[in-house]
């Protein structure tokens, strides 16, 4: 089930098919990602949205092959530029990280060693992937890239402790593009920063794809309004599953899955419509993923739930061209 | 720590959850029972040289004899009891000083904290072994209480540091602020809200201190600066080394005391580790 075959072919940079990844804990396996499929095309910026515990960060890691214990890759297939990631050994994967697919983890700006100059950090990082390149060439490349993105290369001579959070995040993002990966997965790239810096970072991420520095991007976030600014396609995750996939405009204007409706309905932005909005609340919390329920995982909180929802898990089906929903309400199409 | 469960049930659950804790407690218990039963039933005088000298383990002397013909099993029983006693008492003293210095400094802050921290940090930079040796050498005759006091007084700084940082971090926690908003008195906040959160750390550090004290006593004794005219595991080792037991091939003389020190320390570290596992679970939320 859940194998998305309909968007095949042209310029598919990344294909993830029925990916399952579980965390091994003392109490058993936490089924964080339980059968998710998605495709990323060239030029796409994908928004992977969900609340905490939905599995979006885990899916981000699994997509680039970062299945480090306690996270275990259970089943499924991931191809990037035609290369099947899980057929590679861990050390082979390490070689392709950076140049094929790369991840910018959450709070990565805090992982910069405060006493190592930015230029040294970049040189060290790149040398791990390209053995024969000289320091001079690396720095030239870096300066060129900074200029391409309209950022001042003077940060190269600075130390992380001299930089603001936003500047550090920018450095990390630019560094991740230096090997021109085909896909970048950015996990909550704008969290813990002030609003204006967040906007600047979003613009940077957008430029990176539009200027074809990288071929595609997946941005993971809980903030749909943020993703709306630059994504062209959305996947909404709930309790380890993708429940809706659709283009940005269609998702915002006409959410189909009951969970997506609640999520969109709960967004408050400083726009006139918010004032008149009646936010609808939903009781309960996501199910425990140690022992997820059979049937639809949203059953207990869904205002449209039926007996069938409790028994059978709805598959992710294409109900309109390019629109996928996992909900029995749409078993006969929209 | 669940306030609703009975104490026994809580302990049982803890032992079930952490293997390390279970192992550590088991091993330590074995030693304690060994000591108690030994003292009660094995009526051989450890100091009386009435057996054949340097005799390997036999039915009459299960752990052999030393060069003076004294029974090693008896010595081990007395020695273990003695070392445990010194360990626990020294740890109590170190913990008491550590809790007071760390707690007062952390809770009061300001200049009091600055002064106490200065003292603590200065003492921390002095290697405790060196301090121990210097102070011990000062006394010609060292009673057990002097040893206990010396070890206690040189090992409180690290505990004071961790207690202080615990208190500091708890002081500004939201639930303490909320307790103030709800009208609770300062002393109630200290005893009912703050202290129980620190209990786990205090207990953990206490066990670490015991291990440290036992090893310190052994270290002092091995170089001849331990308590005079008594038997402890360290003193046993000292005699074994001083009388060249290794060259003589009298493995039973140095092996058992050495093993005892090592295994007791390991069991205490296991307890500490197990408690850490319980109180600081990795995956949360």
């Amino acid at each position, binding site marked *: 089930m859940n194998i998305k075959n309909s968007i095949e072919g042209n310029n598919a940079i990344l294909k993830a098919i029925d990916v399952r990844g579980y965390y091994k804990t003392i109490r058993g396996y936490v089924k964080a990602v339980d059968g998710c499929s998605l495709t990323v095309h060239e030029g796409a910026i994908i928004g992977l949205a969900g609340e905490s515990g939905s599995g979006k960060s885990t899916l981000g890691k699994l997509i680039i092959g970062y299945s480090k214990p306690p996270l275990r890759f259970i089943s499924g297939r991931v191809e990037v530029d035609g290369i099947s990631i899980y057929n590679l050994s861990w050390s082979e994967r390490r070689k392709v990280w950076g140049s094929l697919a790369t991840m910018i983890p959450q709070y990565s700006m805090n992982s910069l060693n405060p006493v190592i100059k930015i230029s040294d950090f970049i040189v060290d990082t790149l040398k791990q992937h390209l053995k024969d390149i000289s320091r001079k060439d690396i720095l030239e490349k870096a300066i060129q890239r900074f200029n391409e993105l309209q950022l001042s290369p003077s940060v190269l001579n600075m130390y992380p402790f001299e930089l603001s959070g936003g500047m550090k995040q920018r450095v990390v993002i630019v560094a991740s593009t230096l090997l021109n990966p085909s896909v970048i997965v950015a996990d909550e790239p704008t969290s813990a920063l002030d609003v204006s810096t967040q906007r600047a970072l979003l613009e940077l991420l957008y430029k990176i794809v539009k*200027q074809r520095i990288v071929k595609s991007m997946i941005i993971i976030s809980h903030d749909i*309004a943020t993703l709306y600014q630059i994504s062209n396609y959305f996947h909404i995750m709930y309790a380890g599953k993708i429940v809706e996939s659709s283009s940005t405009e269609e998702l915002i204007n006409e959410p189909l899955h009951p969970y997506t409706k609640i999520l969109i309905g709960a967004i*408050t932005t400083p726009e006139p419509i918010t004032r008149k909005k009646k936010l609808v609340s939903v009781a309960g919390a996501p199910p425990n993923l140690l022992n997820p329920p059979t049937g639809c995982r949203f059953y207990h909180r869904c205002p449209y739930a039926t007996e069938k929802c409790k028994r059978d898990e709805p598959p992710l089906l294409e109900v309109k061209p390019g629109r996928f929903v996992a909900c029995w309400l749409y078993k006969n199409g929209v | 720590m669940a306030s609703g469960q009975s104490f026994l049930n809580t302990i049982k659950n803890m032992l079930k959850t952490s293997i390390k804790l279970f192992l550590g407690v088991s091993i330590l218990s074995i030693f304690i029972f060994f000591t108690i039963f030994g003292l009660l039933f094995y009526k051989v005088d450890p100091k009386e040289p009435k057996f054949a000298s340097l005799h390997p383990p036999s039915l009459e002397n299960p752990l052999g004899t030393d060069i003076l013909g004294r029974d090693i099993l008896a010595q081990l029983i007395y020695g273990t009891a003695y070392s445990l006693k010194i360990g626990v008492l020294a740890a109590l003293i170190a913990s008491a000083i550590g809790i007071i210095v760390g707690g007062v400094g952390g809770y009061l802050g300001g200049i009091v904290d600055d002064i106490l921290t200065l003292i603590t940090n200065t003492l921390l930079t002095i290697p405790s072994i060196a301090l121990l040796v210097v102070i011990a050498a000062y006394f010609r005759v060292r009673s057990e209480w002097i040893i206990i006091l010396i070890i206690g007084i040189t090992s409180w700084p690290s505990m004071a540091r961790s207690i202080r940082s615990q208190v500091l971090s708890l002081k500004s926690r939201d639930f303490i602020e909320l307790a103030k908003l709800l009208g609770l008195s300062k002393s109630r906040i200290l005893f009912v809200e703050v202290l129980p*959160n620190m209990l786990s750390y205090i207990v953990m550090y206490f066990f670490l201190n015991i291990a440290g004290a036992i090893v310190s006593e052994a270290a002092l004794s091995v170089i001849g600066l331990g308590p005079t005219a008594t038997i402890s595991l360290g003193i046993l080792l000292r005699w074994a080394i001083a009388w060249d037991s290794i060259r003589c091939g009298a493995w039973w003389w140095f092996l058992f005391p050495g093993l005892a020190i090592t295994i007791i320390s390991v069991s205490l570290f296991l307890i500490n580790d197990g408690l850490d596992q319980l109180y600081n679970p990795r995956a949360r*939320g």
Partner: protein
Amino acid sequence: MAEYLLSVEHLSKIFITGGIRRYEKIVAVDDISFGCNRGEIVGLIGESGSGKTTTARLLLKLLKPTSGKIVYGGKDVWTIPDIEYHRYVQGIFQDPYASLNPVYKISHLFNNTFVGLLKTTPKSEREEMIKNSLKLVHLNPEEVLQKHIYELSGGELQRVLLANSLLVNPEVIVADEPTSMIDASMRVEILNIFKDLSRKDRKLIIFITHDIGQAFYMCDRIIVMYKGKIVEQGPAEQIVLDPQHSYTKRLISDVPKLHEKFVIKV
């Protein structure tokens, strides 16, 4: 025109740090003044470092002002004994997991309230009062009271904390980022409870947040803070739809919206 229920006059708070020599000065709150009335939801908006959290702590008497005063019901709050003041003014903090003592069960929180502020309440009434306040926040007492804090979700814990405030039945609730650490789908219930408290029970809610959209949804009036100062204050619609100060304008234009996208030049 009429006297304010709770007001702040030229309030400042300066933190001095730096060890024995005490040389570093941080001006967290810089000469702010505003007033609030019963039945209002007043939003205090700012980014990190704006001084909004320090203002919250000052309003709750958890910090002493360096200068200026806070006035409740016509009296300087520092002339009112804490045990009386906190019957009128309560607080909700940002992290529900940090607001409760992890060593105890949920019931401990309510017991504390009865040991402290409500110690004159007869013991026979206490259980009933706890049950009622939990029901007001749509929680089942049987399912909640005997649990430990990590067995409940963030949203449920915040509601527990709200229920505890309702036990005290204050006139003012100072809510410091009450939903920032809670998932979107669970926020709405809490926000709606605040709205009811304001509309139906005529309580004053001081709602502190960095999320201007949420403030726009919740608040009647908005006060915008930046680096310890108030840069602008007024009715919510005016502040958000017609901001005057340059900081406010920049703040609102940089917040992502759903009906227009950022224009990005490539």
